[in-house]
């Protein structure tokens, strides 16, 4: 079991309140991602759950029991750190066995669990090496191994992939998702990368300045962002947010339209503009189009190559059923 509940949890460092009182429930077996720009309090929130930081006020409940005053080791949670935090002077085997050794398990049980974890994570050949002799991805797996041998109620990941190169990151993302499917244990994952959030999460928690902006499944967030912050944060490339007279036509303070919901053509359309920089990905092309409708260039995603040149005159036609409308406070208008 690994249900985690935060009741009116808040955190201040001195007189600075980094997390105003906040409620959140994480169900057993869920993969929850905390996402937000740097400094939004997502790591602090994770450390509050882990017990590495003390809450200023409120209660952390694990499986219905108040864990607020329980020391980190006794909460039954395992954490994977951004820097992996492996013990450099111990072999991989000793690193993975460390929590078991601290728990006082007997030697044969330790060996059994370490061997099993190493098998699951493809680390069997590296057990006698030191962390310094491993690559980034292998170190990451050792850190995960150290977490899974404890058979915790929930896993906490603090930006675990941010030190890996892009190709490895995609691979590890799949491995972690795979691990979650197999173990079916609650996982809480902190990242600033919305792609990681979208691809891995059952539930995404979008945070800004310690405040939860929206909680929902990846598609809910994508299709129905609750406010302009979530609208701009989720999705890549970013949603085009247009204010002023163009928004007023739709009875809104701001309208949002995703790059994939705009058609670009040389024929007539809603907005006239000139092509700026275009980014060619092969499968897709992103055009940044300067128009009179918006002060910012509008990003358009088109499939394949269209053969449009820099400075060429084009017309944009947004798809009306995919238009998002927001009021003057930035909240969604249904």
């Amino acid at each position: 079991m690994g249900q985690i509940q935060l009741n009116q949890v808040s955190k201040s460092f001195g007189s600075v309140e980094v997390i105003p009182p906040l409620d959140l429930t994480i169900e057993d077996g869920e993969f929850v991602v905390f996402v937000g720009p740097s400094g939004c309090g997502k790591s602090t929130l994770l450390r509050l759950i882990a017990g590495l930081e003390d809450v200023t006020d409120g209660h952390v409940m694990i499986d219905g029991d108040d864990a607020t005053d329980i020391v980190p080791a006794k909460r039954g949670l395992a954490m994977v750190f951004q820097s992996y935090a492996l013990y450099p002077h111990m072999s991989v085997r000793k690193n993975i066995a460390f929590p078991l050794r601290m728990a006082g398990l007997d030697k044969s049980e330790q060996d059994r669990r370490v061997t099993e974890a190493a098998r699951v994570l493809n680390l069997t050949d590296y057990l006698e090496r030191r962390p310094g002799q491993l690559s980034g991805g292998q170190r990451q797996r050792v850190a995960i191994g150290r977490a899974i041998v404890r058979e915790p109620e929930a896993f906490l990941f603090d930006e675990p992939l941010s030190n890996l190169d892009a190709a490895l990151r995609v691979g590890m993302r799949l491995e972690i998702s795979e691990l979650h499917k197999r173990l079916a244990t609650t996982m809480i994952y902190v990242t600033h990368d919305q792609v990681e959030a979208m691809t891995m999460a059952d539930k995404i928690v979008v945070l800004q300045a310690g405040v939860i902006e929206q909680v929902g499944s990846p598609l809910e967030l994508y299709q129905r962002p609750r406010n302009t912050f979530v609208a701009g944060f989720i999705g890549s490339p970013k949603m085009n947010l247009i204010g002023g007279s163009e928004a007023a036509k739709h009875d809104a303070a701001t309208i949002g339209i995703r790059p994939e919901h705009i058609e670009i053509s040389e024929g007539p359309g809603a907005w006239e503009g000139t092509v700026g920089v275009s980014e060619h990905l092969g499968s897709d092309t992103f055009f940044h189009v300067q128009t009179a409708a918006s002060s910012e260039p509008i990003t358009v995603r088109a499939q394949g190559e269209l053969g449009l040149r820099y400075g060429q005159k084009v017309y944009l036609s947004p798809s009306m059923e995919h238009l998002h409308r927001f009021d003057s406070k930035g909240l969604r208008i249904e």
Partner: protein
Amino acid sequence: MISPSVILLLGWMIIPLSLTIYFSFLRYNLITPTGNPFVGWENYYWFLTDPSFKAAMINTLVMVGGILLITVIGGIGFALLLDRPMWGQGIIRIMVIAPFFVMPTVSALVWKNMFMNPVNGIFGRIATGLGFEPIDFMGQIPLLSIVLIVSWMWLPFATLILFTAMQSLDQEQLEAAEMDGAGWTSRFIFIVLPHLARAITVVILIQTIFLLSIFAEILVTTNGGPGTASTNLTYLIYVSSLLQFDVGMGSAGGVIAIILANIVAIFLMRMIGKNLDA
């Protein structure tokens, strides 16, 4: 192009060394000016069989070992204390390091006269005030007194090196260990101490080199006495060549000291080499 500096450095080292070796084979006594005949290993024989040589060797080992023990353990303790945030830590850190800046003769004299003197010293006054017999530090426990004085001088050095090492410890490692269920003691034994191992070997190496040649502290406090109770090898060489005017004997002692220092250095280097590899 590097030959000038190589020649200069070699000369700098080789000339005094070869002169010392040369003198150690001569009968060269300043109070019997009867020429300096070649006497072979005679000086070595007499230096090694002198009862004060054995005493000096033991004293040297006890001094170096004792001071290393006190400074390393004390240094780790101080480093742990300094590592936590506290009020006025800038000033406190400077004050902890201050003893290192005091000249050996001065600090030894201050300790001898103001702290350890049985009549005027603070320790003596405290003992008398409490109704105990004051301890005559330099008379009753000369070796321990010198160990204490020199430890006081070297503690800042050990603290400084170990404190710097302590600060480079990744906090996430400690947090990970905390999550893994390690209490304070386990974290200290399994994370902090292994992290400090390298710094500890550096402290041991550098201090050993300097502690083998403690001299000023002995000269201004006990003069190597009473008897040979606080004479170390360096002081014994001084006694032979400058108090007994026997240059040959002193040189022989010097050569022996060089050999011993090299043996120690080889051991330490191997130890450090192992530790620095990881």
